[in-house]
């Protein structure tokens, strides 16, 4: 059990997986990430660690994952292609596997102009789909790009992100198909507020047979306030916050908005459980990790299954 991907086992055994996100600190403070991790122990199957999210410099995801692994959790290493070329990416994959990290999520990453280092060069040597393919080939064929053999192949459960709400809608499923074809074994989606649109996307994905080939985990983010809902609606690219969700948040007094946000989140998860092809939920409670346990419990997802060793 120590060295296997718990997330993979929960999914392979037919369970409804629960993952949550954890942002590393803006400092060399190991304690900070471990504190967050404790809030999630036994609450989730795996913990995603973000990679300089929004192009803001934070402790590296690889280092933070290593700390979480040592603390007995199952980390999901998020890797963006914005900051590293193919040499560094493949190297980090080998390093992650050597450290016992067993899950990796391959992402494009937010453009560098969003963060606190806008003068940095954006590398983008590979894109996220090519990266998935590279990791899969390293694992299954034991070779790096170009065909040279590795002394030992990495062992990783490979995932990618998907945005059911991005433009153009018609192409979203083609992109998902490409990710699956490249080797994505699990998918974590952008956070869902528009269930109708998500259900459409799921239907299209099922039609293409993609739900047979990959585990889709629906993303959710609890809203802290009406202000947050408005911000996400207007300012965050690729996000769809329907008017009725905004109305619900605005319809309660300020002090109760957080409570309402969590309620909406729990309801969303309950609906996700009903959608065929959705194999889990990914909770992104940014800087609100202490609420994850409550959300998971109210959604009827506790206790987490005990995983048999295989």
């Amino acid at each position: 059990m120590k060295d296997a991907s718990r997330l993979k086992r929960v999914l392979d055994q037919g369970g409804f997986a629960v993952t949550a996100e954890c942002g590393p600190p803006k400092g060399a403070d190991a304690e900070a990430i471990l504190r967050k991790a404790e809030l999630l122990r036994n609450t989730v199957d795996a913990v995603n660690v973000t990679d300089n999210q929004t192009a803001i410099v934070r402790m590296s995801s690889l280092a933070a994952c290593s700390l979480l692994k040592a603390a007995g959790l199952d980390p999901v290493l998020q890797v963006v292609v914005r900051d590293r070329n193919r040499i560094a990416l493949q190297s980090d994959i080998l390093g992650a596997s050597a450290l016992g990290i067993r899950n990796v999520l391959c992402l494009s990453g937010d453009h560098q102009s969003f963060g606190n280092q806008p003068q940095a060069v954006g590398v983008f040597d590979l894109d996220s789909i090519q990266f998935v393919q590279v990791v899969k080939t390293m694992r299954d064929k034991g070779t790096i790009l170009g065909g040279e053999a590795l002394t030992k192949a990495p062992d990783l459960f490979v995932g990618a992100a998907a945005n059911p709400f991005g433009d153009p809608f018609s192409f979203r499923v083609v992109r998902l198909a490409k990710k699956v074809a490249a080797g994505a074994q699990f998918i974590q989606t952008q956070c869902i507020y528009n269930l109708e649109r998500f259900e459409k996307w799921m239907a299209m994905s099922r039609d293409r047979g993609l739900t047979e080939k990959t585990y889709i985990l629906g993303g959710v983010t609890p809203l802290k306030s009406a202000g947050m809902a408005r911000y996400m609606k207007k300012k965050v690219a690729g996000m769809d916050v329907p008017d009725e969700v905004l109305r619900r948040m605005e319809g309660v007094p300020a002090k109760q908005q957080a409570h309402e946000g969590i309620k909406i989140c729990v309801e969303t998860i309950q609906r996700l459980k009903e959608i065929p092809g959705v194999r889990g939920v990914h909770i992104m409670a940014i800087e609100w990790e202490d609420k994850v346990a409550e959300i998971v419990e109210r959604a009827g997802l506790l206790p987490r299954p005990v995983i048999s060793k295989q």
Partner: protein
Amino acid sequence: MITAERKPIDEIRAIIAPYKKVLVLGCGSCVAECAAGGEKERGMLASTLRMANKMDGKEVLIQEKTLDRQCVKDFVILLDDIIDQYDAVLSLGCGAGVQAVAEMFSELPVLPALNTEFLGETRDQGYWVENCLGCGDCMLDDFGGVCPLARCSKQLLNGPCGGSREGKCEINPEVPCAWQAIIDRLDRFGALDRLEQIYPPKDWSRKQGGGPRKIMREDQQR
């Protein structure tokens, strides 16, 4: 064409400050097209610099000339007869032009008046957009004539990324999403299924693998 924009006057004045006999050199090609360094702009800049010097009581000789192209040796050599009169050249050429002049007259400081920007097209009068990276391995036939490297902010070959909104890039609502354009274009040709294949990683060695690139054509040489 290559596009450029003139540096702020203050910066230019600081750059030429040490010199007493300056030749302001315009270029009749790309920088004239983008109204940054052609004959008219050269005239404006030289006049402005002379006026500023007069106001400051500085005695500096500022003369002017325009070459059809600054990046071609055969034009640059035309300066041979007059170059000794000056202690610096203020070039309104693009970076290629500045360096070509500097290469020819290596004893003389050749200073840039412009900031060279990108390879692009004149989309409309007074409107220039970047569209080529000079990657050395053109794939425009695969992408309906829209370059995903030059025009996608993340250089995705398997785009789009999911951050675009109404056909505009996530980094700036004024920047069109290249992948939206590619999809629309291929759709129009009925070739959208081409995008179902996974494009392999780009060979960047064709751009940077050997340092600054060169082309040698014996059939073109004397």
